[in-house]
């Protein structure tokens, strides 16, 4: 029997108890992993153990897939009308809303993001997403297509079957909702692997999904490592699609594995090095606020973070001054303290990685204009960091750092800044700041990115597609979980060989 995690929150931001099983959630039950092994879950604010959770294995993935398949063929898929799927999804959203503070607290504890942001961004976004997709469940429509008088031809948009979903640690619950929302709405059954760094909110959500009344096997959670459980999902012969959000490096492996096994459908949400272009006719104060939000929000652990900030020479000095003041105002500390604006990075490994990028910036000759240091001596806190005087070939300019590290670059040529902005293998998002609408739209259209923000940054809505150009990904979230079948019914066309 897996153990129950029971935790008493007693913080300035939240007080209350949370309690849920630490097992794998398969076929509607919480169970031990097949090897009875566990994974440690660490609190990034302190570096100390929160709890241990069951570790899944490829065998457990098999069990989950079998349960999902059975559910798909009997109680879910096309056996369950869209309106009924909608009802269950809305019930889950209602339960998540009832437990909103509890979920936000668990998320802040596990990931390190501040309770304030967990509640006001992550939870709100996740609940809205589930509700948005619940609304689609009975609206999956095909077309009737005219061919000739003797035939009826129509398309059906059928669920794929069992889908595998691998989610990251930066927005655990939000990413979970982006994945399960469209998959459940279209009638698919799910085997989901949360990140081994941040498994807790997924387990609490599984408890709520059970309470909502989803038939057993429709939604399964298999915690485990990428190299074992993640690979097992990518290689599984009975999984029809794998949806992955994470690094470009791992994304390639997933796609390879899919190609080598059953050619399962693949959607990938990968990294980014998103440009933020601030023209001289921008509303400077607004641009500074958005630029800070763009790179420092969520401790910089955002795939669409505006990490390369291009500032027109005319306003460069003033921008840098104001931007630095903003960075100074970001209070880094305990996620549960109401004054904290930024928490710790998610793990020791991420902390080391970000610090090594900061070192490389220094080594390659860039200027640390602000920050660049650890904060405190407990937990994985890093100061908001600003680099200037960079060259395009520097690692901190080319590679995704995934931390609160922004690179500010001066420009004075409109055409050239667009070229520089596009000079990356990534293409997830971009921001453009200008009060001249012509300039703003022209630039937004020329930037190669899946999302272009004009005079804002990082704004996401459940109803708006999100995804990457180039090596930032394949497919769109909030996207495709159906297989189109064309049905031709011949009712009059006689076939003759002569």
């Amino acid at each position, binding site marked *: 029997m897996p153990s129950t995690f029971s935790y008493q929150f007693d913080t300035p931001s939240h007080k209350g108890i949370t309690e849920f099983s630490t097992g794998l959630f398969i076929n509607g039950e919480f169970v031990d992993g097949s090897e009875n092994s566990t994974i440690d879950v660490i609190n990034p604010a302190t570096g100390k153990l929160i709890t241990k959770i069951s570790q899944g294995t490829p065998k457990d993935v098999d069990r989950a897939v079998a349960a999902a398949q059975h559910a798909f063929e009997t109680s879910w898929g096309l056996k369950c009308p869209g309106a009924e799927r909608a009802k269950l999804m*809305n019930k889950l959203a209602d339960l998540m809303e009832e437990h909103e503070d509890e979920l936000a607290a668990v998320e802040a504890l596990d990931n390190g993001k501040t309770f304030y942001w967990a509640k006001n961004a992550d939870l709100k976004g996740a609940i809205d997403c589930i509700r948005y997709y619940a609304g689609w469940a009975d609206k999956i429509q095909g077309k009737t297509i005219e061919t000739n008088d003797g035939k009826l031809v129509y398309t059906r948009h059928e669920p794929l079957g069992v889908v595998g979903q691998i989610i990251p640690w930066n927005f655990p619950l939000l990413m979970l909702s982006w994945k399960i929302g469209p998959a459940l709405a279209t009638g698919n059954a799910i085997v989901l692997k949360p990140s081994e760094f941040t498994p807790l909110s997924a387990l609490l959500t599984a408890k709520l999904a059970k309470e909502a009344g989803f038939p057993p096997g429709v939604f399964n959670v298999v915690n485990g490592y990428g190299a074992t459980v993640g690979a097992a999902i990518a290689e599984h012969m009975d999984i029809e699609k794998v949806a992955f959000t994470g690094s470009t490096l791992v994304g390639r492996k997933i796609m390879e594995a899919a190609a080598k096994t059953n050619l399962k459908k693949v959607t990938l949400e990968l990294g980014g090095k998103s440009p933020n272009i601030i023209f001289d006719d921008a509303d400077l104060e607004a641009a500074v606020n958005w630029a800070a939000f763009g790179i420092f929000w969520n401790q910089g652990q955002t795939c669409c973070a505006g990490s390369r900030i291009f500032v027109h020479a005319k306003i460069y000095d003033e921008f840098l001054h104001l931007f630095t003041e903003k960075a100074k105002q970001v209070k880094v500390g305990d996620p549960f303290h109401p004054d904290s604006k930024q928490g710790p990075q998610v793990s020791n490994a991420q902390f080391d990685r970000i610090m090594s990028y900061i070192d490389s910036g220094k080594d390659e000759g860039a200027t640390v204009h602000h920050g660049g240091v650890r904060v405190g001596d407990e937990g994985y806190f890093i100061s908001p960091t600003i680099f200037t005087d960079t060259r395009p070939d520097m690692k901190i300019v080319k590679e995704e750092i995934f931390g609160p590290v922004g690179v500010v670059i001066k420009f004075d040529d409109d055409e050239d800044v667009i070229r520089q902005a596009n000079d990356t293998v990534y293409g997830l998002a971009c921001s453009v700041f200008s009060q001249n609408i012509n300039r703003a739209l022209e630039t937004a259209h020329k930037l190669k990115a899946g999302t272009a923000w004009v005079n804002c940054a990082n704004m996401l809505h459940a109803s708006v597609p999100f995804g990457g150009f180039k090596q930032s990904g394949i497919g769109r979230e909030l996207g495709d979980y159906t297989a189109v079948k064309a049905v031709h*019914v011949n009712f*009059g066309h006689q076939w003759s060989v002569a």
Partner: protein
Amino acid sequence: MSKFTQVNVPATGKTISVPTGLFINNEFVPSVDSQETIQCINPATEEPICSVVAGSAKDVDVAVAAARSALKTTWGKNVSGFERSRLLNKLADLIERDAQELAELEALNNGKPVKIARDFDIGDSVGCLRYYAGWADKIVGQSIDIDNKTKLAFTKHEPIGVCGQIIPWNYPIMMWAWKVAPALACGCTIVMKPSEFTPLTALKLSELVVEAGFPPGVVNTVPALGSVGGAALAAHPGVDKIAFTGSTVTGRKIMEAAAKSNLKKVSLELGGKSPQLIFESADIDQAANWAALGILYNTGQDCTAGSRVYVQDSIYDKFLQTLIEKAKALNIGNGFDEKSGGGPVVSKVQYDKIWSYIDAGKQEGAKCVLGGEKRPGKGYFVDPTIFTEIKPGMKIVKDEIFGPVLSVGRFKTEEEAINLANDTTYGLGAGLHSNDAGQCMRVSQALEAGTVWVNQYNLLYNNVPFGGKKQSGIGRELGSYALDEYTSVKAIQWNYGEKLDWPL
């Protein structure tokens, strides 16, 4: 008149509180200039239930002004799709919570059995609200390339505005939901005129609109006589669109009034004389079940009632015998009696109208093989009535009777069947029963009706569009198509690069 009245429910010994005022700006108010009231009658007992305020043309003005104000401030483009979705879902939850009470009130006022009102009318209505709640945050337009250098065009599907909605007495709650749900989902505000015969549930539902949290003025309810309130809405310069369900006669007047006033957009769900074709390969027992349902459900008071059945010669006698047995099996009685599968017709006016058609049928020489005899005692009960040996020119074959009165004819060939079926100015529904797939496809393509049922009849779903061809109506309700009725497309053409030389 006091603001609330306690309506007695004899069968349960309890009372239901019903607001009696006009519902404007989230409050129940008296008429601004009239003392007129509407008396509601229980059609099973012919006894009065209660009276409510009858709205005047001036009251319609007040309601329209409230709706316009809400559209400009708290609703329309000022409220997000997410918020509209949330409120619609909340309203659905409340109706579900109060389903039993609403069903009893509906049964008292309309006559239909309580269990049918609760499980079908109200069940479907809750589903309808939830379905449109799901659309509210998905009203999308298109982005359209002109050239990729200097211009962008995109469309917005904006709320059409203040909508006048006039609903009938046959499915008071369900017709209310079909109108309210898509209008609110699209961001429109509403002045609803329920039927003067059955205003009570619309008033009770208005209480739930407040409880759900809709801002004042978004939904307004003005019970009134058609010739007063309905006419005022149809002609009102402050109403952007009128949606009407009712008779074709009244539908014409509405469209005329719209044309003469401000060319408001019009959608109409009118009458029908829907045919069902029974082919020789059909499963006779099943087809008879569906044919019985088609004419007897809701005691024939259904715009899509399958009021003409044509049977292929080779199976005519067998089918007719089966159908007569099926019709006899239906228990028509008081809506609070568990045994009742159908209730009385809604009013004396309707009762008299139906009987005059039955008399006409006999006089014009059709053969009455079932029913045709009045029941003694109280209540507007009409028993299932079947006429055979019909001819195309007969009144019972041409006119919509809106009661449980069926005309049965016969045909030899498929072509003859199709012609008989289409020989009507109406085009709302049609049914065909056959086990020949090719025949099903050919005939369903050929029938001139907005809904063609194949091997079934009458069943509707919130996500499938519904509406009439020919003189049965304009526009579609339900499904994604209803959204088109409550949105108006604006194309925004944006130049960000072209300089204009002048003079040309």
